[in-house]
Each structure stands twice: as structure tokens, then as C-alpha cells.
């Protein structure tokens, strides 16, 4: 294992890590607002990526399809929250989990039915020539990192500096007080889902050129996103980002030098169980004390 080889894997890890970070961020956003883990996040992202594929296939230029898909994903997320999740928001945990799994399964089979199970290739908008003269990363890797950074920066700015972002943060932290200042908490939840779905769709479109488009493409990636979110702290957006990068690098480095490519999901499993058992609040999350 030479230093160069290690660096290559670390960089590749950062590129995929950015994708995991985006998906993990979507998970954290929904968790912060609802204390629910969206098991269907991966399938939602996959389905939206298929929509992008269909648009591109129909002749739309890549970036046009990209933007339109993000918009569609946003609306999709809002609708799912209002129509399917809202009725069970306060139901027992098992009921909610079952609904999420139902959603996962429906989206997966819908994608298979509409778009068939044949594996498709999904274009990368970054071309084949080295971008900006950078040679140690593929253009897609560099491009993915760029897109991830832009998305994260936009989200951060939105939540930190806009009134709506502030209201959404408030609604997630303290719904009752939020109502007392006039915030329509229900709609904040729906918006949160919309944003999470939009971010997820971007993750899907960045990962599809690498793993090829297929209804089951997000299963393993969702697992990594879970591991990343837990590692960083399921209620910490910053933690999700750091967790995503760490998981991406770990996956690549361990996969290349220690355990081989076939056991990558097992790494995610070990990470998830390890974090849950050893330090459930992750590195940056808050420790929850439940009052008896």
C-alpha cells in the first residue's frame, strides 16, 4: 500500500462520502423535525433519479433535467408528508415503521414496473476530460464533490440566514412554542420533507453514473447514509456531513486494502451496530435523557 494508492482511495472516499453526506443530511433533517427515521429515503432518491433519466432520455439537456428533477422531488416530498406520513405522525413506532417500509416497497416496485429492471446507464455531466486540469480525481469525482459543497452551502445559508429557515429550525426543536409565534408547524414539516427529498434526489443523480441505475441501487447506499447519520449524531446536520465523509473514506480504504469489495455492506452494519451500542448519540449529537 503506497501513499499514492492510499491517497487515491481517500479522495475517491471523499467523493462518495459527499454523496453519503447529502443523503445522511436528508435523513437528519427529517429526524430533527419528526424524530422519525425515513427508511424510504433511498427509494425516494432512486425514483427521482429515474425521473431525471426519463427526462434526459426524452431529449432534455442534463442540467435542465437536473433542476426540474430537484423541483419535482421537492413537491414529491411535500406530498408524501402531507398525504401518507401526516396521518401516522403520532402513531406508535411500529405503525410508523411499517408505513415507511410500505413506502419503500411501493416506490421500489413502481420503479421496476414503470422503468423495468434492466440496468441503465446514467450520464455524468462532468465529461471525461480532466476538469480544471485536475488529474488525480476523475471529473465525476471532482464534480460530485463540487455539487455536494454547493448543496450543503446553500442549505446552511438557508437555515442560518433566512426567516423561513429559522422558522423551520424552530418548528423542529419546539413545535408548541413555534405555534405561539404563529408558525404553521404542519407546513414546516412538509417543507422539511420536500427539502430532504430534493437533497436525496441530488445524491441519487450523483451516484447513479457510478453504480448504474437500477431499482435496487440505493439499498446499500442508504445503509451507508444511516451509518453516517448515526456516526455524526442523528440530530446533528454538521455531524451527518462529517459522518458521510468518514464513512466514504472508510469504505474505500478498507475495501481496497483490508477486506475487499464484497464486504463493504458488512462494514456499514458493524458501524451502525457499533455506534448504537457504544455511543448512540454519535460524535456530535445530543445525549438524550428520558425522564421516567
Amino acid at each position, binding site marked *: 500500500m503506497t501513499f499514492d494508492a492510499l491517497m487515491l482511495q481517500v479522495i475517491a472516499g471523499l467523493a462518495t462520502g459527499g454523496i453519503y453526506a447529502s443523503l445522511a443530511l436528508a435523513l437528519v433533517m427529517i429526524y430533527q423535525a419528526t*424524530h422519525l427515521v425515513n427508511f424510504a429515503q433511498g427509494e425516494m432518491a432512486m425514483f427521482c433519479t429515474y425521473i431525471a433519466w426519463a427526462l434526459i432520455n426524452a431529449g432534455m439537456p442534463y442540467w435542465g433535467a437536473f433542476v426540474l428533477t430537484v423541483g419535482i422531488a421537492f413537491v414529491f416530498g411535500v406530498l408524501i408528508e402531507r398525504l401518507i406520513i401526516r396521518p401516522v405522525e403520532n402513531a406508535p*413506532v411500529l405503525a410508523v415503521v*411499517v*408505513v415507511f*417500509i410500505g413506502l419503500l416497497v*411501493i416506490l*421500489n416496485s413502481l420503479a*421496476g*414496473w414503470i422503468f423495468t429492471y434492466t440496468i441503465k446507464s446514467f450520464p455524468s455531466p462532468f465529461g471525461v476530460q480532466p476538469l480544471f486540469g485536475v488529474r488525480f480525481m476523475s471529473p465525476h469525482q471532482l464534480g460530485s464533490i463540487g455539487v455536494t459543497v454547493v448543496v450543503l452551502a446553500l442549505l446552511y445559508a438557508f437555515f442560518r440566514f433566512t426567516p423561513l429557515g429559522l422558522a423551520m429550525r424552530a418548528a423542529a426543536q419546539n413545535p408548541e412554542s413555534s405555534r405561539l409565534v404563529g408558525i404553521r408547524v404542519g407546513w414546516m414539516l412538509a417543507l422539511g420533507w420536500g427539502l430532504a427529498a430534493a437533497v436525496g434526489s441530488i445524491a441519487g443523480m450523483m451516484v447513479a453514473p457510478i453504480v448504474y441505475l437500477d431499482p435496487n441501487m440505493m439499498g446499500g447506499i442508504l*445503509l451507508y447514509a444511516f451509518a453516517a447519520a448515526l456516526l455524526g449524531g442523528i440530530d446533528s446536520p454538521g455531524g451527518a456531513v462529517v459522518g458521510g465523509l468518514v464513512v466514504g473514506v472508510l469504505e474505500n480504504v478498507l475495501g481496497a486494502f483490508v477486506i475487499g469489495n464484497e464486504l463493504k455492506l458488512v462494514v456499514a452494519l458493524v458501524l451502525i451496530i457499533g455506534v448504537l451500542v457504544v455511543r448512540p448519540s454519535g460524535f456530535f449529537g445530543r445525549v438524550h435523557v428520558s425522564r421516567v
Partner: protein
Amino acid sequence: MTKRTWAVLAALLVIACVLPFVLSNYRTFQAALVLVYAIALLGLNILTGYNGQISLGHGAFYAIGAYTAAMLMDLAGFPYWATVPVAGAVCLVAGFLFGLPALRLEGLYLALATFALGVSMPQLLKIHQLEKWTGGVQGIVIAKPDAPAFFPSIGLPLNQDQWLYFFILAVTLVMFLLAYNLLHGRVGRALIAIRDQHTAAEVMGINTALYKSLAFGVSALYTGVAGALGAIAVQFVAPDSFNVFLSITFLVGIVVGGLASLPGALYGALFIQFVPNIADEISKAAPWAIFGVFLIAFVYVMPTGVAGAVRILTARRKSP
């Protein structure tokens, strides 16, 4: 149990015994699979329905049972019937061991951890270093057992499918009987108490940690036994059949069949065995779309499952 329930069960038993002689071999095989799934669903129900611990990864225990049976038959020459208790024992230990760290995990987090287990199971089964035991990607093929010589000798020639059916039926009866005793006694009440009022149960002196881990172990045992029987019936184990969708299938089974209900396991097994058969005609994606819709619909409309509906209907007829 009331006299009426005994009568119904006796009638069902008679029907069950007659079935293999009136159905084709393939249908008998399907009926055997229904029984196998019923045992698996009973296992999941013990954990999730009666004890409230959510598992999205029970396919893993089914896989462990199946592989235990296959490896014992393939590598150690065990007779098929001996592999079943061994598979059960292995899964009891595996479940208990998984249940220990799971003690610290509540609802959603446990669902997450078991989901991870379910998703990564195929990869675990394909581990390169274990290939000479697990058969790697191709899995293991096992021979179909013959009916013991006893039966033709008394003039009752049973073919392989019929014998397998009766063998599985016998195991099913034993498993259900054991579960009935377990769940209707002190243990069952403790499990339900832990599910409904965890803190109160602890304060009352119930050793919740022990019961919860045991619930995991016993639940895994049941699903593992089902896995072993399933492997013997299907004559084949391979990693990719034990992915997370198997775990989700089990979840569908208990939600549709009815949580915390013994008959629910049977209703659910019928559902998960026959819906794919029928829906497959429509399209490859249809069975899962139906499963998904039923999952959501049952949560909204029939949260007690088919068993709950049956209970309500039969209760109404009794009141004057």
C-alpha cells in the same frame, strides 16, 4: 380454549391431513411452504407482536437456520430431521446474542439495526473465506428426503412431497403448541407487560433485560427452524434469496395476519405465499406493490390484521 375452538382446530387438522392426498404434488409443496412461513411469522410475532421489539432483519435468522441445515446435510451428512433442532439451537444462541446489545436500542433504533442486518446478510453469506462451507454465491444444493420405509411397509406409499408435508406439519403443530403454552402463561404476560409499559414492568420486578433477550432468542429459534424446514423443502440455499426483502415479507405477514396472534401467523403465511403466485401473472413488480399497499392500508384501516377482524366478527355472533 373453548370447546368451539377445539372443534375448529380438530376440523382444521383433519383437513390438513387429507390435503396431500387430494392436491397435486406442487400444491402440496406450496401448502408445506405455508406451514414453514407460519412458523417463521410466529417467530417474528413473538418478538414484535408480543414483546414490541421491531425487527426488520428476521430474514437473517431464517437464513442462519437454512444454512445450518444445508451445511450439516452437505458437509456432515446429517439426516434432514436432525438438522431442524440443531438449526433451532444455533438460532436461539444467535438471537440471544443479538438481543443483548439490542437491549439498549429503542423502537426506531432497533428497527434501524435489524434493517442493517437484513440488508447486509447476503454479503455476509458470500464471505470469501467461508466459501468452502457456505458454497459462496452458488450456495448449496441438498437432496430431497424420501419418506421413511415404514410407510410403504404398512401399505401407505407416501411420495417425497407428501412426506415432507407431514413432517413439516408435525413440526408446525409442536411449535405452535409450545408457543401457545409460552405465550398464555407467565412468560407471555411478562412479554406483553414489557411491550406496553416498559418502566412499570421493571418496577414490578420483571427482569426486562432477561425477558427481552430471551424473546429475541426464542423468536430467532422459531424463524431458524422455519429456515431449516424451508431449505429442506426447497432443496437449495443461496445468499441472494435471503436479502432484506425476505425480512420485509415477514413483516408484511405479521401486519396482515395480525400482531400478537397465533392464528395470525397462519393467515399471514397464506397471504405471503399466495399473493406473489397470483400477482406474478400481472408483472414482476406487482407482488411488491401489493405488499406495500397492504402494509400501509392495514396500518390505517385494519391495524389488528386479519386475525383481529376474525376476532371481531366471531365475537359479534356470540353476543345475544
